[in-house]
Structures are given as C-alpha cells and as structure tokens.
C-alpha cells in the first residue's frame, strides 16, 4: 500500500495545496516551503495518537481558528495487497460495510477518478481524511479521521469514522528532524514502545525483576548516618503529636516503584563491552551524528520486521542527513529506499537528492499559502533521451538541486561563465571588506553545457520562474536572447556589455591590480608595457587561456589581496543579486532595455571590449 497523493487545506503555513508521491521520493525546497508540514500532516493523519504536542492554534492557517475554521489532510492510498488486484472485495477490511469508497487512481492525470466501476488505466484507491476544528465553547480542539467521499464538514455532515487499526495497518512512521535521544529512543517515547510492541519485545519480565530489586536490594540512603539519626528524631517527634509510636518511617528509592516509572527512568549508556559494565557513557553525551543514525537505523530495522510479516511500512524521514558526513548521505538514501514499501524524505541536501532519479525528486514551494509541488521530471533519466539539458541531470544534478532551493538563481550562458562567476563569488565572500560594504545574497549558479542557456532556462523556469539568464554581449549572446524570448518570457535577463564575454568581466575585476600585478598576472602578461586592460582582455580570450581553469583560479585568488579588485567583484555580484530581486543595480553604467514581451534586459555597460 502506498500514498499517492496528499491534499492539505489550512494546515500550518499551507492554505491549500497538494502533492503527488511516487513510490520513493525526496522533497526538495527552501526553508518554509512546507516540507515539514507535509511530513507532519502525514504523521498526524496516520498515527494512532499524536506523537507530538497536542494541536494548537498555530496548526491552523493564519493561527486564529474560528468555530467554522477547519484544517484538512486528505490522502489517497493505492497499491493494495501486491498492487495488482483492483477488486475492492479482495480488501474487505478497507472497503466492506461502512468502509472506504473505492475510487480509481490515474498515474497519467495524477488524479482520482470517482466512478462506480474501474475506468481503463487506473488503479484501485481509497481516500482518507482528517479534519480538525476549534471548539470555542469547550476551548479544545476536535479531530476526526474519516473516509473521504467528497468535500464535506465532518462535524456537521454524516461521515464514516476510520477504525484506528486500519490506520495503523498503513504503517506510516515519521523520523522527525528534532531528533533528541530522550524523545526517540527512551522508553518514554511512544515511537520506541511502538517498535518494541511490534517486535513483541517489551522487556516485561526484566522490568519486573528490576522493579523488585529496586524495592529491596539497593543501598538504603535512609540508613546512612548522620541522615538516619535526623530522620529518627523527626519520626519520634511525629509520634509525640499522635501520642503513639509512628508505624511508618521514611525510605528513599531511585524511582517510583511501579513498572511505568521504572521503564521511564531507564537511561541508555554506551558500555565499552558486554563484560566491562564499569565503563559507561550516557548515550545522550554522544555526538548528534551517532544518535541521528541510530534512530534511523532502528526505524529501518523495525520496517524490515514489518515487511517480513507482510505488513506495510511507509517511512517518512525529515532531513536524514542531519549531523552526518556527506559521504554517508547517498548510502542512507538507498538504505531508506530498500527498507520501506514507500519512502518520503525531506531534505536540504542536494547530495541526498542526487541519490534519487529526477522523477523521484519533488520540488516544493509555498507562495503565500499556496503549496505547489512538481516532480523535476516525469520520466527516469534513461528516458529523458539525448538533449541539451540532459547534462543538467547527468553531470550537474547536485548543482541544479541546490539552485532550486536557493534564494536567487542565475543561469550563465556557458560553462566558463559559470566557472568565472563562481570563482568571483568565492573571492568576494571571503573578504570582510566586501561583506561589510555589500550585503551579498547567496546567488545560485546553474552550469549550462554547450551554451544551452535557453533550454536550461526553460527547464528551470518551470520550478523557478524568477531565475535570471546571464549572457555574453556578443552576437551569439544576442541570438540566444532571441531564442529565450521565443520560448519563454523571463522577467529579467542580464547581458554583458558590447562584445564582452566572461573573460572581459574578469579583466574588469582584475584591472585595478594591473599596476601591482600578482605573479599569475605577471606570467600571463610578462611584458610590463603591455599591462593594459586591452591586453588583459586579449590574453584571457585566447583559446588556451580561456579554458585554463588553473590559471583562472590562480588569478582570482592572488588578486584577493587587492581590495579594489575584490570590491569590483563584490559590486558586480551585488548588482546581479539586486537585478535578480527586481531592484535597480548600483553601478550607473547599467542600461535597461524593455523587450516587447515584458522582459527587462539589463546590460552591463562597464564590461565591454576595449
């Protein structure tokens, strides 16, 4: 069984929106895009009791629920049994009597078809929903989980409540991003108890023995002198009040002596080995990475056990990369996929995301409450076919995913433009002066191969229409602008000045250091009389130097000592970020042309061929 679609209304920061899940998926999105809301909505819908804090006003969109306010979480479930049987009668616990209404999931339209009989190319599905309201008279929140048959208000209209056992059978488990040891792996945690119960592994007898040991076979603090004497005096004084010897005296034990207290007071330690229990280190003192991984592995072990018993297991993991070394990220992704019938992972890590096929990566955005989600591609890599954006998924997947989540995106014309800009970005960001003078917003760059800037922009603008193409000032650049404008209408395009390419930008940045050249610059321009902007432009444009990444690196880092160069780099990048944000650049040399399609073309007049 798996979840194919989730629809949310008025939940947390999401006023309305839905998201379609493939079998295994990773949710990618910037902070506050609603990834956590999606994960927690699923956990809330499918968990028997709330694993987290009770509902609050803030679970409602806007945070001020009225009596008529509802938030709803509606999920479509499909792939019952082994996923090949589409007859609802085969799944009586779901559909018989007052159960779910059979509906039909179409993978093509990514929607549910409500029909009495199965339409072609659809699969059997069921819809379950949760609605919550605030009861202002009782001052409490009310939840209802019910079989969904279309829009209704379950608090007034008739609805069929879902039996708890059925929801539990879906087997949804959430690994939340707040992974504190005492919350997740102690006996006080319902997740942990759930895991143990599923294994039938609650150590009941051992707890019972421990309970009895704690009652009698412990060091008795109340017998230690001089505390014992003081206690005795107080007791005999107490006796004088009642004119007889007190029958009771005080005793101290480490916990409440009932099974629950004993269970809850258990603290986990790392022991050096099984025999040497003298060396103990509280696990809570361990690094977060170990805890993080251990929790995840525990859930995975649990999942395996469920799968062995032919029970469903759906794992939702929030940011599984937390506190872990990047090298472990991809391995983690593949472990998650193999251990669960369905997995939904939220992440900020392009590294984790790149472990998934583009048709498993879902880009999530939240624009003033409207949640939108889109799979990066609908097909797997091998089906994308040979085209000019293929490299985006083959070579530059990680950069692409990173850019998707970034605040501002620039799509440079070719690979060398990309490298130069990235280099200058690093140089500028390493300088305190530049950071103080210009508030540099992180600008994500997308590598484009074979100068496929138009195609790459088209691809990324499906997710980020605010991305800005960055072009050379030569004729090829002009042609590409025409191509871009013929297939899409970006709100802004950046072009370098007349006949200028990225090398001309670098020359302009390096210009202040010509008087005091660094060693790389000296090697490039050995003749002292030839050290002019023009000769620098020529030298960098030569076919060999143009591709010499090592030279570029040396030139850039060596000029990092020259404050004026760094400031030029920072100023240009700052102007780029202003343009990307829709504001006016600081350098007066910029010119703006309004193209007919509503696109503004910003030209850097100061970067030109001399």
């Amino acid at each position, binding site marked *: 069984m798996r979840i194919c679609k989730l629809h949310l209304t008025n939940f947390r920061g999401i006023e309305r929106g839905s998201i379609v899940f493939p079998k295994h998926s990773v949710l990618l999105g910037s902070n506050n895009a609603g990834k956590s809301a999606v994960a927690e909505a699923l956990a809330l819908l499918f968990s028997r009791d709330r694993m987290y804090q009770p509902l609050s006003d803030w679970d409602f969109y806007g945070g001020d629920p009225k*009596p008529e306010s509802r938030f709803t979480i509606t999920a479509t479930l499909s792939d019952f049994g082994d996923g090949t049987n589409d007859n*609802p009668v085969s799944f009586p616990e779901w559909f*018989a009597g007052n159960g779910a*209404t059979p509906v039909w999931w179409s993978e093509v339209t990514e929607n549910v078809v409500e*029909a*009495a*009989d199965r339409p072609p190319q659809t699969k059997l599905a069921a819809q379950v929903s949760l609605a919550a309201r605030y009861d202002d008279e009782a001052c409490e929140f009310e939840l209802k989980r019910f079989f969904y*048959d279309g829009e209704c208000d379950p608090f007034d209209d008739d609805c069929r409540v879902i039996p708890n056992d059925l929801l539990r059978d879906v087997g949804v488990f959430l690994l939340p991003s707040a992974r504190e040891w005492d919350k997740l792996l102690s006996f006080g945690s319902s997740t942990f108890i759930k895991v143990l119960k599923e294994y039938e592994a609650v150590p009941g007898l051992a707890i019972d023995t421990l309970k009895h040991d704690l009652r009698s076979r412990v060091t008795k603090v109340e017998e230690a002198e001089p505390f014992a004497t003081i206690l005795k005096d107080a007791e005999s004084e107490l006796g004088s009040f009642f004119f007889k010897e007190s029958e009771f005296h005080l005793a101290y034990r480490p916990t409440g002596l009932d099974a629950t207290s004993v269970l809850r007071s258990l603290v986990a330690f790392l022991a050096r080995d099984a025999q040497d229990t003298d060396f103990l280190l509280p696990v809570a003192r361990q690094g977060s990475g170990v805890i993080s991984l251990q929790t995840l592995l525990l859930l995975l072990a649990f999942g395996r056990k469920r799968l062995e018993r032919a029970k469903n297991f759906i794992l939702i993991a929030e940011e599984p990369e937390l506190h872990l070394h990047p090298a472990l990220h991809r391995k983690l992704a593949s472990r998650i996929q193999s251990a669960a019938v369905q997995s939904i992972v939220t992440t900020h890590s392009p590294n984790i995301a790149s472990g998934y096929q583009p048709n498993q990566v879902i880009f999530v955005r939240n624009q003033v409450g409207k949640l939108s989600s889109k799979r990066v591609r609908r097909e797997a890599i091998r089906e994308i076919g040979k085209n000019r954006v293929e490299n985006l998924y083959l070579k530059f997947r990680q950069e692409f995913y990173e850019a998707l989540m970034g605040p501002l995106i620039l799509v440079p014309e070719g690979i060398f433009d990309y490298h130069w800009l990235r280099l200058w970005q690093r140089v500028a960001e390493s300088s305190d002066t530049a950071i103080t003078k210009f508030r540099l917003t992180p600008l994500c760059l997308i590598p484009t191969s074979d100068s496929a800037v138009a195609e790459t922009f088209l691809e990324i603008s499906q997710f980020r229409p605010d991305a800005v193409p960055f072009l050379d000032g030569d004729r090829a650049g002009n042609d590409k602008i025409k191509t871009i404008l013929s297939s899409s209408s970006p709100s802004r395009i950046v072009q370098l000045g007349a006949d200028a390419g990225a090398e001309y930008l670098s020359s302009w940045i390096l210009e202040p250091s010509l008087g005091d050249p660094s060693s790389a610059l000296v090697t490039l321009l050995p003749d002292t009389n030839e050290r002019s902007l023009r000769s620098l432009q020529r030298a960098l444009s030569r076919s060999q130097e143009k591709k010499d990444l090592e030279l570029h690196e040396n030139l850039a880092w060596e000029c990092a000592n020259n404050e004026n160069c760094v400031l030029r780099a920072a100023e240009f990048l700052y102007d780029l970020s202003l343009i990307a944000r829709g504001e006016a650049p600081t350098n007066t040399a910029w010119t703006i042309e309004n193209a007919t399609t509503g696109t503004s073309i910003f030209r850097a007049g100061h970067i030109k061929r001399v």
Partner: protein
Amino acid sequence: MLQPAFFLGHAGTGKTKELMGATRESTGKLLLDKQQRVLALSVMHGAIRRLEEKMREDCREVPTVIRTIDSFALTVVNRWRGAMGHSRPIVPTSEDSSFEGPFQSHLTFTRICEEAAILIASSTVGQLIGFSYPIVVIDEFQDCHGAKLDLVKQLAKHCQLFAAADDFQLLEDGVEGCPSVNWIREAHELGARVVTLTKPHRCSIAAIVKASVALRTNTRSLQTTISVYCCPVIVMAATKLTFHRPGGDFALISPTHRDITNILRAHDDWLRRKGRVPVYWRREASKQEETTGLMKEMALNRARKVWRVPNAPLSPTALRAAHFIVKASKLRGLSEIPMSFAVSLAQRFMSTRALWHHRAVKRMALTVHGAKNREFDNVVIFWSPHSVKGWSEEMRRRLLYNAVTRAKRTCVVLYLGDEQSCLDDPVVGLLGSAEPAFGPPKRSKRAT
C-alpha cells in the same frame, strides 16, 4: 445468482418468525468474513423497532445492520456521490423536488433510491454491497413499491434476499394492487422459494381471527366475531370508551387524525361534565402535523430570507430544534442564518427525532397508518363511516383489517351510526352482528 425466498401470510401467521429462522440458518453458509453483516431492512421507520426486537429474539448472535430502505440508499448514494456527479453531501428533503442548498444537495427519497439502484446495478458497487451484506432481510415487504422496490430488486441480484409480506396490509393510497407481491409471484416463476403461511400464531382469540378472515375474504361472517357497538352520536362512543377498561396496554385506533381528535375531545368533555379526573392518552400526531406545528412555533417561514430564534418562549422540542440549528450554523460560520438552511435543518431534526418516538405507553391514540406493524393487548377502533367515505371499499376493508389485527387479546369497534346503517355498511357489516352501545336500562345500570 442466489434465489430469494419469500414468506406470505395473513397478519399473525408467523411470517416474521419464519423469516428470522431462514436468516439464522443461512448465516453459517453465507457469513464468512468478519466484515460481513446481515442487512435487515424495513420500509418505514415504525417497523425498525419491531425488526430490532425480532432480530434480538431470534438471531441474537448474528451481526446485523438494521436500516430503513431509505437510509440505506442514502448511505450508498453519499458514499458514491462523486460517481453520481454530486459534489456536496446529500441530505434527504421532504419537499417535492430536489434542490441545491448552501452546503448540501437536497434530494427526495425517491431520487435517492433511484440513484442507489443505479449504483448497485454497476458491477463493482453491486459486488461490494453483495459481499458486505450477503443476506438481506425485509419484513413488511408489502409496503415496498416504486423506487424502493427497484432498489430491492437490484440488491436481490447480489445478496440472498429473505422477505415477508402480506399484500392485504398495504395501506398506501394510489398504489394499484401490491407491486411487491406481484414481483414475488414473478420471481416464483423464475424459481424463487415462496412459503405461504395460513395458521394463525399471534392471536389465539377466535373472535379476532374470525373477524380478520371475514374482512380479508370479503364475506359476511355468520357467526359472532368481535363486538361492534353502534353509537348514533359521538358522546355515546366517548362514554363507551370511558367504561372500557381491559387489562394490559390499550390502543385507540381510527382511520384519520380528525376522528381521534373528535372522540378524545368528546371523551374529555364527558369526564369534565362528570367531574372526573382527565385521562391521559398519548397522542401520536402525524409527522406532518408535528413538523407544521414546529415550523409555526419557530417562525420558520419561507417568505422571509433570514431566520432568527423567536423571542417568544419555546416548547422543549422547539428549544432543542433551535439549539440544533444555531449550533449547525455556527459550525458553518454563518452570522445570519438563511431561512432555507434553517428549514432543512429543522426537517432533519424532526426526522431523526421520529426514530425515537415509538415507545409504548399504557394508553395510545393513533391512526391505522400509525399503528401499522405494531401490536397491542387491547384495541378499540373508532370507525366513522363519514370520514372513510373517500376511500374505496377495498381500501376501507384493508384499513379495518389492519386495525383489527393489531389486537392480541381484545378488540372492540365503536361505530358512529345506528344499528341498521352498521349492518348495511359494506365493511363493518362483514363483522356480523352489531349491538347498540347502551341497551335497556338495566344493562346500563350494571355498567355504572
């Protein structure tokens, strides 16, 4: 396909008992999954309680869902409302035609049953319903006709149907013959099992049995049946009612509400004149009458657009209804309550209330329609030939038959008219002899 089985017979011949027996026997064979249930259906609300009692008595261990055909159809249509093209939840309306309310689609029960029949005709829904309810039991099947009967016919394709009927107990105006019994005859030709029961079980009192046979067969009884007292004026009937004090519970049955009102008023007057304590009769007003009364009390008037809780003090029922409306409006976030919304809520309130309205008390006054499917120790029938004029002779016989067969121990008819007209009456006359309500002086002395 499973062949349905039917039990036909007169009132009190043990149809229901046979029905329960057949159900119990087939559960072992048909109820295999723990999700499966017997679906016990009744046509009218009033029969639900009786069905519940019977199921409890005879099919104690059998997991059962008891519903009216209407409410079962409503559940089916609501579940598959998307497939039927309704975007909103469906609620039944008592109006003549279906309409869209602010939050719900209001459909007539006829339409609801029609749509449910269409759904069950589809293979997936039919199979699923057939799996969920392998056995469908219907008592008082004679009352089932029109869209309800079509729905049952669809159900019979997927479920084992057991039904009991007596065509002489159908009291619906404008229904020709008895459609359900006609269908049973057709089904019989196609192989359905039909058991006809003749031996009376419920009532062993010879007089009542003879009276029912006379009415059913339309032959004047030559022997004495139940007592028929002729009361030329209503006061005499009222007096007779006062002196009639049998043991056990007691129902006053009359063909129309107006007759009941008249005789109870005369009865009250008589008691007041004699300075006696008034006697409490639990009056089961018609649903229609109650709803109209409530609508008036709560100022639910379609002429206005917005409804407010009236300032005048309200009766407990009206108060609860008002609370119901206000609460529902608050849930929907309405600051002003649209009249149409308030009216549909009031109707919903009344229809859910009707479910709980059938508890027996010592003295009840009800119409023949209201008494349907129920039993009382003692029955007094107040029969005014004038009020039943509008009905056909056949219908009048059915009415009287139904009233007479409600009795378990005693049954008395108070006929409004003199002896001669009583004997000439084509319906009451069938019961044989009639006697004056008050005979010679010495008899009346003995009575006091």
